[in-house]
């Protein structure tokens, strides 16, 4: 057995370039999988432990003001644990402090460092705020006329993302939760949000008990964990990353299998006579195939383990991103046994199996056929006939290169795949990068107000202030789609105001007075596939309504529908001269109101932009890497197949540059055609990726592209191709310099 193993291994190692690619593609596959997976498995477990230990709420609700709150709460205590929560927003020195009442049963604060306050002059804050503002435990903090000593930092399990109840998302530098003693909390006067946090008492009939709550008419607001923006984000993030990891594994794994299959098929064709000789000497096909399988096992095993190690190291990048995005103390790296099996065992097994398949299929041929190098495919296949027909239409100079390219379906397929992957990633990357500025622009266009004030109760419009204020009504609604209830906001704008002008997709101003139906934001339209002219079912206060989508606005708030205030007031059964919020350029400090400035809003948008830009960069790097790898294979396969032709042309007196243009650099025109054919698919896939991410994160990421970008994507592909071809042109020179009679000796 040893002699033929030695012979086969020597032949295998003569294809170093291809072997290197097989090795690299396995590393890339497992690296991309573990890069994500290492940041998922242990954290999913840690999250579950954290949720239980900190008694995280499973739902929250508010009781209707016309109901007996005490009685309702008492009635719930049989099946549920319930605790009152309140948050007071105090704005001081360009910072927002969200004081919370100290929970005792549910949503217990996790102490990151130090302790919670015991004395009136003590305060505890979020660690991100402290780090961002250079604060430490033991330092003093002056808020207005009070001075505190910082005693500790904490996380709140129900606020993985800093979106205080009844407010917008805050950024860590300008805002923080704060815990003080109950007495000091009561002394603060500010906009207060009150609600109840709850948990189901025992795990039995959990779904039924939650359904009971949802149907309870006593609540003006009820939301379960997965409906609350401030929590379940980590779980959502981990789940979507798990899908991402498996997607990488499947796609790159399939590419890897394809490359393995192609390699062994070509390798055995190249050494056909030798394999015939082994068979003629009495070695069975299984014995011969076992050598190839062992080789595949070694490359795959080393590659998979290498990818695992690199993935472990690389996952620290993702963990860093998680740490900066979420308030969770237990982010750690780790994988389950199943993840190890998927990324290592299955990858190795799949590569070994495909090698076995390719080898056994080839070795089925009898020794005579192999020894005499008989090519059974003598007849012209459909592909070859097509290739010839196309080539015959072209000038003589192009016929050889075009036939060379069109006759090899596998390299053509690989070229198409390369173009699809690289262009999709490029377009996705650009769009992700631009999405933040697109969102920022859409959230500032048509807005000439600085303050957005919302009230706990309805207020009367002041007629002579309509020029300086724009009144609105706000109502939380649920739209119905495919048996799902999707929470959105409905805003009735006073069309006599002009501080907010909505534009349609043609950049024309929408006059809500003339609108028959509602105007939805572009985010709602794209995420849920709702278009102009569609009918929409929605629920307000458990009453179902139907309306018509009159327009789509490109500068509305993300999850918001708009209509005229008077129309909404009529639906709500309130006078048309009432409002629940106003837009203005004057700060009005009123009790029981909450003010959000456009500066605060912009700060949050810009901090989100960082995450999108990071993803964009990762996309581009991955795209370039995969593109280079696959393009290398395409050109390598072509180069290897054409070595004899190169020698013949050299014997005919062709110079290396002429040989390169005829045989090596043949894909340029084909790439242009493939790019034009594949581009619509790449754009569509990229659009769907955006849509899926938006739905998964419940955060609209707009898709954008333009002609220049598409041209740039093509230029990027051709640059990658040129880079790869450059190395092969040098190989041609070296091959030719070896001697004219490389095919003779």
């Amino acid at each position, binding site marked *: 057995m040893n002699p033929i193993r030695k012979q086969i291994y020597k032949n295998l190692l003569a294809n170093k370039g291809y072997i290197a690619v097989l090795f690299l593609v396995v590393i890339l596959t497992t690296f991309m999988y573990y890069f994500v997976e290492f940041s998922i498995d242990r954290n999913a477990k840690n999250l579950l432990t954290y949720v239980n230990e900190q008694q995280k709420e499973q739902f929250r609700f508010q009781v209707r003001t016309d109901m007996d709150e005490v009685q309702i709460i008492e009635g719930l205590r049989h099946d549920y644990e319930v605790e009152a929560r309140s948050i007071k927003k105090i704005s001081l020195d360009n910072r927002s402090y969200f004081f919370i009442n100290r929970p005792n049963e549910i949503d217990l604060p996790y102490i990151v460092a130090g302790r919670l306050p015991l004395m009136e002059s003590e305060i505890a804050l979020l660690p991100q705020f402290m780090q961002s503002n250079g604060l430490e435990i033991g330092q003093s903090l002056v808020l207005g006329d009070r001075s505190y000593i910082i005693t500790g930092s904490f996380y709140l399990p129900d606020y993985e993302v800093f979106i205080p109840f009844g407010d917008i998302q805050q950024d860590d530098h300008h805002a923080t939760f704060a815990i003080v003693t109950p007495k000091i909390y009561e002394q603060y006067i500010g906009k207060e949000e009150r609600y109840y946090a709850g948990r189901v008492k025992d795990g039995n009939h959990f779904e039924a008990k939650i359904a009971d709550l949802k149907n309870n008419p006593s609540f003006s607001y009820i939301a379960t964990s997965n409906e609350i923006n401030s929590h379940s984000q980590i779980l959502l993030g981990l789940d979507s990353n798990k899908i991402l990891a498996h997607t990488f594994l499947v796609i790159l794994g399939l590419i890897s299998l394809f490359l393995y299959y192609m390699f062994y098929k070509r390798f055995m064709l190249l050494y056909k006579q030798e394999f015939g000789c082994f068979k003629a000497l009495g070695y069975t096909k299984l014995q011969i195939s076992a050598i190839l399988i062992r080789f595949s096992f070694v490359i795959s095993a080393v590659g998979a383990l290498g990818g695992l190690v690199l993935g472990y190291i690389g996952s620290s990048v993702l963990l860093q991103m998680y740490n900066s995005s979420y308030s969770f103390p237990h982010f750690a790296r780790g994988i389950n046994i199943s993840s190890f099996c998927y990324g290592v065992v299955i990858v190795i097994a799949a590569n070994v199996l495909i090698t076995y398949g390719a080898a056994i299929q080839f070795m089925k041929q009898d020794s005579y056929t192999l020894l005499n190098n008989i090519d059974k495919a003598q007849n012209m296949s459909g592909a070859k006939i097509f290739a010839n027909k196309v080539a015959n239409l072209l000038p003589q100079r192009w*016929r050889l290169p075009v036939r060379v390219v069109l006759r090899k379906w596998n390299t053509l397929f690989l070229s198409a795949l390369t173009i699809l992957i690289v262009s999709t990633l490029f377009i996705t990357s650009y769009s992700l990068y631009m999405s933040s500025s697109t969102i920022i622009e859409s959230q500032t266009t048509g807005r000439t107000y600085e303050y957005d004030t919302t009230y706990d109760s309805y207020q009367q419009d002041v007629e002579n202030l309509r020029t300086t204020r724009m009144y609105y009504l706000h109502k939380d609604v649920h739209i119905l789609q495919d048996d799902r209830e999707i929470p959105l906001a409905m805003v009735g704008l006073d069309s006599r105001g002009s501080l907010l002008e909505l534009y349609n997709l043609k950049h024309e101003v929408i006059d809500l007075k003339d609108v028959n139906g509602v105007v939805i934001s572009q985010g709602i339209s794209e995420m849920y596939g709702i278009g102009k002219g569609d009918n929409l079912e929605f629920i307000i206060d458990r009453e179902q309504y139907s309306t018509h989508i009159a327009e789509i606005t490109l500068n509305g708030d993300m999850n918001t529908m708009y209509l005229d205030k008077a129309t909404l007031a009529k639906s709500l059964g309130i006078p048309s001269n009432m409002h629940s919020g106003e837009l203005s350029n004057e700060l009005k400090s009123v009790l029981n109101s909450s003010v959000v400035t456009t500066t605060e809003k912009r700060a949050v948008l810009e901090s989100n932009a960082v995450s999108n830009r990071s993803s964009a960069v990762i996309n581009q790097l991955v795209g370039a890497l995969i593109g280079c790898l696959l393009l290398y294979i395409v050109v390598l396969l072509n180069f290897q197949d054409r070595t004899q*032709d190169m020698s013949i042309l050299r014997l005919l007196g062709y110079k290396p540059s002429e040989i390169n243009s005829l045989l090596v650099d043949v894909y340029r025109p084909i790439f242009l055609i493939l790019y034009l054919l594949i581009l619509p698919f790449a754009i569509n896939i990229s659009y769907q990726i955006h849509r899926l991410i938006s739905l998964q994160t419940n955060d609209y990421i707009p898709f954008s592209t333009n002609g220049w970008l598409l041209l740039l994507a093509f230029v990027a592909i051709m640059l990658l191709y040129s880079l790869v071809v450059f190395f092969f042109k040098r190989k041609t020179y070296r091959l030719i310099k070896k001697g004219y009679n490389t*095919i003779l000796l």
Partner: protein
Amino acid sequence: MLTILSVDKVTKQFRKHEVVLKNVTLDIKEGTFTAMIGASGSGKSTLLNIMSGLLKPTSGSVLYKGKNLTMFDDNEIANFLRNDVGLIFQNYYLLSHLTVEENINIGISNTGRHYELNEISKVLGIENLLRHFPSELSGGQQQRVAIARAIMKKPSILYCDEATGALDEANSKKVISLLHRIRQQYGITIIFITHNHEIAKTADRVITIKDGMVYRDTTCTNPISVKQMSWA
């Protein structure tokens, strides 16, 4: 007759103690059919490669029309192969993705000087095969295409290395007959390597190579015709 090619004290050593050619000196006259015979490993193919510019000798020189081939750089060798020389091998070496017509045309010289395809294909009896691919042809047909490609550019010299080695008797005779006809019709100088003595008998001159040296150099005053060849 003018001397077209002059080999002067050519020696070729591949590795230490492996001297394949030893001080070979000979002249080739224009328009002649010269056969080089010798046993396997005698050095005849190596000598042919040096004479055609494919290989550089360890010492000595090869003059083609007065120009020293051994001093040519890569570009000059390429031009020489492209414009002045035709090569025919035992294994034909046709480009599998080109039709017969395209394989022939790819042999056209840089200068654009060439015979007419119709004429050449008729002479070689391949006028009905122009749209076919090499994989669709027999060995004899493929070799005729290779000959057409080699002479299309109007070369001064045609080098044939065991051109009939892969052919049966009938096809071999056809090819030899064609080569003689081409020489007479176009005045091309032919150097033909073979181990077949019957083929050598049809040549104007037979050079026997043995152990890397010219063992015998015989001018044939009465070469036999192809019909007279008897295959062993």
